[in-house]
């Protein structure tokens, strides 16, 4: 329970920082970054507090996604009109994304070790 409170606290802090800084960074992601920094500073003590809550929440992520995901039912017209552009974009960009990451990493690693 304390872990959840810490996570919510960092989310609120993140929303605040994102708003105050004027960056268009999503507040929850700012909270994620602040939590990572805090973990690096406070180390194991903070990690022990949030570990369990973090594992629990991330374990239920599929459940937490259902309400927003079901919003797809309001988008039938968009899906019907742009079905093929969406499918083609997903298929091709997944292959190019995987290949670009793998080739860049293996090329740079090989260059370094040679």
């Amino acid at each position, binding site marked *: 329970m304390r872990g959840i409170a810490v996570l919510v606290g960092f989310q609120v802090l993140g929303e605040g920082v994102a708003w105050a800084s004027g960056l268009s960074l*999503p507040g929850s992601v700012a909270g994620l970054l602040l939590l990572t920094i805090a973990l690096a500073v406070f180390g194991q003590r903070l990690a022990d507090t949030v570990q369990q809550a973090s594992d629990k929440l991330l374990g239920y992520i599929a459940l937490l996604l259902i309400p927003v995901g079901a919003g797809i039912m309001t988008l039938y017209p968009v899906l019907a009109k742009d079905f093929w552009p969406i499918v083609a974009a997903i298929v091709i960009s997944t292959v190019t*994304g995987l290949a670009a990451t793998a080739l860049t990493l293996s090329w740079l690693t090989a260059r370094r070790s040679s």
Partner: protein
Amino acid sequence: MNSLASLWGYPLGRLFASTSLTLGVYGFGIVLYKLGRRAPLLHPGIVGIILVVAVLTGLGVEYTSYFRGAQPIHLLLGPATVALGVPLYHHLSHLRERWLPLLAALLVGGSVAAGSAMLIAWILGGDPLVIRSLASKSVTTPIATVIAAKIGGLPSLAAAVVLATGIFGGLIAPPLFRLLRINDPITQGFSLGVAAHAFGTAKALEIHPAAGAFAALGLCLCGVVTAVLLPLIFQWLAG
């Protein structure tokens, strides 16, 4: 039928009906996922979304009234996103030895994935809203939905696109790695995490424990870096 749908007519009923429907389909999804030997297509998130849509459509209930009732579940998505800071912190130590190649691969791979998705949809005449919803396609779903909201896309479409990317990425990665002669488990894992988020990480864990760790690192880094850069790029393009 009608009396069930009327539950959504007032606030408390809405709260009760939406949360129990969501929990119910999730529970069913978990059972199905285990029976189906964790096949990616049977992921409880995907099955849950399809079943909620089917029930709401069958009962004639509007999505907005379902969503208002499902807020107790939906609101936990924010803390869950923050919670990703914990695995990021644990996996950051993996960056130590080859941080430069890893970060370079992250930037190249993330940009190629987002850029090629938007370019293809644009060439094929996709709607600007659809193109914006594709930009966050390789990012883990909770972060992708908030990015889509920030850059003027559709969060629900972004979620669907992300799930489809994850499933397809997990399927296509092994033959693609063979074709490109990528044999190093660390390279395979990191690419899977960057390009196919949680589904890619699950696939990487099947390959090798090191592949799984680097996939988790790739997933967290890709989510954070995309969330920082994409809204900035869109702001700059608009300004």
